[in-house]
């Protein structure tokens, strides 16, 4: 029987940190993609954002619906004609509890189809002192091309020990 859930690629950020985490040359032979992240930003003050874009495409190709909470407030917002799918203030950084990384799960069904690509994004960034955030986000990449690259970017660098795993799920 064909393997259903396969690791395509992984990234572990080294000692120098990394501005982005990127998966390229993604084979078109699976049905869905899942990305699991464990990330922390090097930002020394203020908050850190995380954003995801596909096939190197910025511009106005994305839309999103976000629902977030920080322990005090719940916010629902949305964007259209947007340059990426993002989570604001979500990533733990140098102002957060030490050795604490945010976790995310991103699922993209039918990533190789000629339809628009819908994304399911869940992100949590816990912190034992000040505010931290949880997001559930519906993303949309309004593009008929199969996804061949995924870029995870953020405010400043991702620090050492940040990890990202790209899995392919096959329904064959």
């Amino acid at each position: 029987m064909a393997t259903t859930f396969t690791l395509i690629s992984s990234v572990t950020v080294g000692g120098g940190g990394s501005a982005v985490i990127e998966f390229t040359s993604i084979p078109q032979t699976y049905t869905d993609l899942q990305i699991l992240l464990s990330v922390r930003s090097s930002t020394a003050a203020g908050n850190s954002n995380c954003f995801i874009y596909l096939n190197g495409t910025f511009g106005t190709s994305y839309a999103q619906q976000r629902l977030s909470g920080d322990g005090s407030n719940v916010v629902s917002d949305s964007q259209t004609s947007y340059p990426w799918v993002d989570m604001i203030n979500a990533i733990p950084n140098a102002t957060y509890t030490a050795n604490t990384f945010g976790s995310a799960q991103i699922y993209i069904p039918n990533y190789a189809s000629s339809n628009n690509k819908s994304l399911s994004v869940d992100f949590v960034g816990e912190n034992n002192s000040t505010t931290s955030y949880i997001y559930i986000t519906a993303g949309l990449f309004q593009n008929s091309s199969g996804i061949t690259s995924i870029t995870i970017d953020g405010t400043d660098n991702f620090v050492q020990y940040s990890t990202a795993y790209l899995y392919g799920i096959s329904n064959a």
Partner: protein
Amino acid sequence: MTATYEKIATTTLGSNQATVTFSSIPGTYTDLVLITNEKQTNTSNRSSALRFNSDSNSNYTQTGLYGTGSAAGTFRTSSTTLIYYGFYGYSTTSNFNFNSIININNYSNTAVNKTVLSRANNAQNGVDIIVGLWRNTAAITSITLTMETLSDFTTGSTFTLYGIKSA
């Protein structure tokens, strides 16, 4: 080595359908995951929902958390005839902008009622997370997906059921 994550069944609709059913689900897995990528026929948006083992009686309960871009809220219904898996994050007639991830853990355990955790995503309408309860200890052997009245799943909608083994 025993495969941990296996496809049980998949379907891509060749024509519009009111329901999609996965039947004869084997009881040999630990948990189930159902992935949908769908759109609907009705221009007045309708929510997606599911039932287990053809039970259309008032044996379901659900609690949901949602965001529509302009409002965040929660809902709860009890003694209902179905569980929503896309309530405000419902599919629409425009492209395949909707997806859902539905987790059904411990689905074949006959000592417990069955719970569902679903995440639904439509960047144009809403995002939600819903927990549902089927008050029945029977093993789940079928799952029927449906839309609210006056709408069908369209041609090209995809539905895949996976089984996860813990041993």
